């Protein structure tokens, strides 16, 4: 072999290091003594922010990361404090978490379960992260949530909308602030009835994977309950980029509403195609043809451009909430102010969720007086809070899902700039979107017991 020289050098070096290892007194690391994984040592605590940095959701990931950085700054006493000022719990003092300065590491989920888990593993195993947060798809959220459960750290989900995250795949160490498909449907149904009447025929296109199905199921159940009829539901491949062949038959199907259960690039393309085919200009059954996109983000609206005008959808939060709907949504303006000042544009709903999740975690630790995941879980379960921009909110103990008002939005006809693409139609109160823990759409999983790890 031609590297014989290198080999010998390598051997000697290895030998020396191994020898040193044997000669020095060794001890097992502190983690195994404290009773839980990655107990913070010294005067810092490390959080792991795992967001998509490559792939189609990279911009959403970037926005999440901005929010995380802002939250860390506020926790450590920097900046204007943001929603710490308005948060109903006052356990946080701006001196880090329990006096330990907050540090963070970042990673790239690539919006793939495997890569997301690898990235989270490295945060847990290498960087000593005690909490993982972020992400922008349900597949990733469920995968990372499962990992955190096994590893014994807390997972504070980022943007994940599938019922499964806190349904059949729920885990004791995982918490979701974001709303879900059932809530979208429950919030949208009454608004849709007001806008479009109670006699409508729905044709839906659904992304052919778990999230798409749960959203379609939820929307169908909610709209049929108020008298609408679902005449067809067509599954579309995830890899599809051109939806013309799915859109073209819609007009002659007798339907007068098209529901697009797509997210990200899929939704941008399917909506663009639907508008191209002139669906929005048509009259069917004597009514205007309407398009509904149950979940869309600000970035998707931006990608769809003018096509988003007039499209009804739901959101977890919007930066104009407090201005338009009043003090119930206090915290919104404080957050928008500090985010806007730092970055120059208003935050997205993904940013707000990530910011809130970080604060909620820190607060739970402070209230529990311990970083032990089981203590944190106990502090978060059944926690009622306010002042994080969503109005009064409950972290339900039974499934670790947040219950709060859902915002119904509509694409603006004449947006002033690229951050002001939607207008708020109304906020559906939390009671209307609440469901039982054992609701059939969420059945099948067990929360299990909290796992503190080591």
């Amino acid at each position, binding site marked *: 072999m031609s590297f014989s020289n290198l080999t010998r050098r390598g051997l000697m070096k290895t030998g020396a290091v191994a020898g040193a290892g044997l000669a020095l007194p060794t001890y097992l690391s502190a983690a195994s003594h404290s009773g839980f994984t990655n107990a913070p040592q010294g005067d810092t605590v490390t959080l792991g922010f795992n967001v998509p940095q490559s792939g189609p959701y990279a911009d959403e990931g970037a926005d999440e990361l901005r929010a995380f950085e802002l939250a860390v700054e506020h926790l450590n006493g920097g900046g204007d404090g943001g929603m710490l000022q308005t948060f109903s719990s006052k356990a946080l003092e701006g001196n880090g978490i329990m006096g330990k300065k907050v540090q963070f590491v970042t990673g790239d989920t690539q919006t793939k379960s*495997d890569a997301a888990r690898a990235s989270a593993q*490295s945060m847990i195993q290498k960087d000593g992260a005690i909490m993982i947060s972020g992400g922008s798809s349900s*597949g990733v959220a469920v995968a990372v949530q499962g990992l955190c459960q096994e590893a014994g750290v807390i997972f504070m989900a980022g943007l994940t909308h599938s019922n499964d995250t806190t349904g059949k795949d729920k885990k004791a160490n995982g918490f979701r602030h974001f709303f879900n498909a059932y809530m979208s449907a429950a919030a949208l149904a009454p608004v849709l009835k007001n806008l479009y009447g109670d006699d409508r025929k729905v044709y839906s296109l659904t992304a052919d*994977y*778990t999230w798409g199905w749960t959203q379609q199921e939820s929307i169908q159940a909610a709209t049929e309950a108020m008298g609408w009829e679902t005449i067809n539901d067509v599954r579309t491949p995830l890899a599809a980029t051109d939806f013309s062949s799915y859109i073209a038959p819609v007009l002659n199907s007798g339907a007068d509403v098209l529901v697009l259960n797509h997210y990200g690039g899929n939704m941008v393309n399917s909506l663009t195609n639907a508008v191209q085919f002139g669906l929005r200009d048509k009259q069917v059954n004597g009514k205007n043809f309407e398009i509904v996109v149950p979940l869309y983000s600000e970035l998707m609206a931006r990608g769809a451009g003018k096509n988003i005008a007039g499209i009804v959808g739901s959101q977890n939060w919007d930066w104009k909430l407090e201005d338009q709907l009043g003090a119930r949504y206090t915290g919104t303006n404080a957050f928008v102010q500090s985010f806007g000042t730092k970055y120059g544009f208003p935050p997205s709903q993904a940013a707000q969720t990530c910011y809130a999740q970080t604060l909620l975690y820190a607060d739970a630790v402070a209230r529990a007086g311990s970083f032990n995941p089981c203590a944190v879980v106990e502090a978060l379960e059944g926690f009622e809070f306010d002042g994080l921009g969503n109005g009064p909110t409950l972290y339900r103990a039974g499934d670790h899902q947040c219950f709060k008002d859902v915002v119904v939005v509509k694409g603006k006809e004449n947006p002033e700039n690229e951050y002001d693409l939607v207008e708020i139609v109304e906020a559906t109160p939390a009671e209307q979107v609440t469901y039982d823990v054992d609701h059939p759409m969420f059945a099948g999983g067990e929360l299990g017991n909290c796992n503190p790890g080591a």
Partner: protein
Amino acid sequence: MLGLNKKDLGVLLLVALLAMAAPILLNPFPADSGMAQFNAGYPDLMQRFVIFGIFAIGYNILFGLTGYLSFGHAAFLGVGSYSAVWMMKLLSMNVIPAILLSVIVAGLFSVVIGYVSLRRSGIYFSILTLAFAQMSFNLAYSVLTPITNGETGLQISLSDPRILDGANAPSYPNLFGAQMNSAATIDVGSWSFTFSVGYYLCALLMLVAFYISIRIFRSPFGLMLRAVKSNQQRMNYTGLNTKPYTLAAFVISGMYAGLAGGLLAAMDPLAGAERMQWTASGEVVLMTILGGAGTLLGPVLGAGFIKYFENIFSKINDNVLHGWFSFMPDGIEDFIITIIHPFVGKGWHLTLGLLFMLVVIFLPGGLVEGGQRIGRLFRRKKADTNTPDGTKTPAE
């Protein structure tokens, strides 16, 4: 020894030594230093190094020896993972049946796909394998969700039957009770080294896989595979049937992929459909070419290279950069960070792409050739110092 000649035995021992000492070698920087960012000696990444090493070693038996460029090997990896997770759901958390089944199922799968695809050669073969793998991925993501759990990926859950496991059996993949995620951390001064059960199991299997691959390379069978690459016409007119040779190579590499998939699931009980996507198939092609196709060590090096970038470079954010360069005056610090920024963190793909190009432009034989050049450089230096009159040999 072991039926290998001295040179191969040397390579095997070198790899064994590196693999065994990896938890130390890959953590060269003290845990709290700024350079700790570059440490790769944590269980998950080390496991990925050796698992993807296995994948690439197997792929190299097909591509490196016969020259058949398969664009669908990720399908076998995925199938291996699904079989392993199902085994852990139904039978036992012990990883042995899981890994065995994953190898067998991937083997069967590759017999079928190989048999059909090998009816064609060249790019037509590549596209056939690609088509099969993409079909597997698309179906696994959507229609086959009852088997694969689609987007979310197949996971183990508390309610799984696990008929062989008793009430007190560990709830995590284990080898007769030794859990894959159990590890001992040893602190030496400010260095910290983690030795995990899972990694050593993977490393051991990688060594076995590597050993088998050396035996195949040096065997008459390996010679025939190289002959396939060189001249199929001559093979046919020398009384040799190329079809079973290529099929055997295809199936062996498929089984390697299945082993890798099974191990991925054993280390981390989740099987996601993305493992079967064409990008994943492309990744192993890149690993093999990048390291040096047809060489023994190349694929392992290539696998390590790509996984290192994916996991280490992607985590370098601006905060980390500021940490490194904080000793500099503000203006210069910001300037340097502005320059580095596009290449690290979310820009890790850019760096990877540039490195692909640089390696293939300047090192046509892959990383192994780079190693050989450095080796030659060392030898020449030594020779120079040995020349009595000290005259330098002119550069080539």
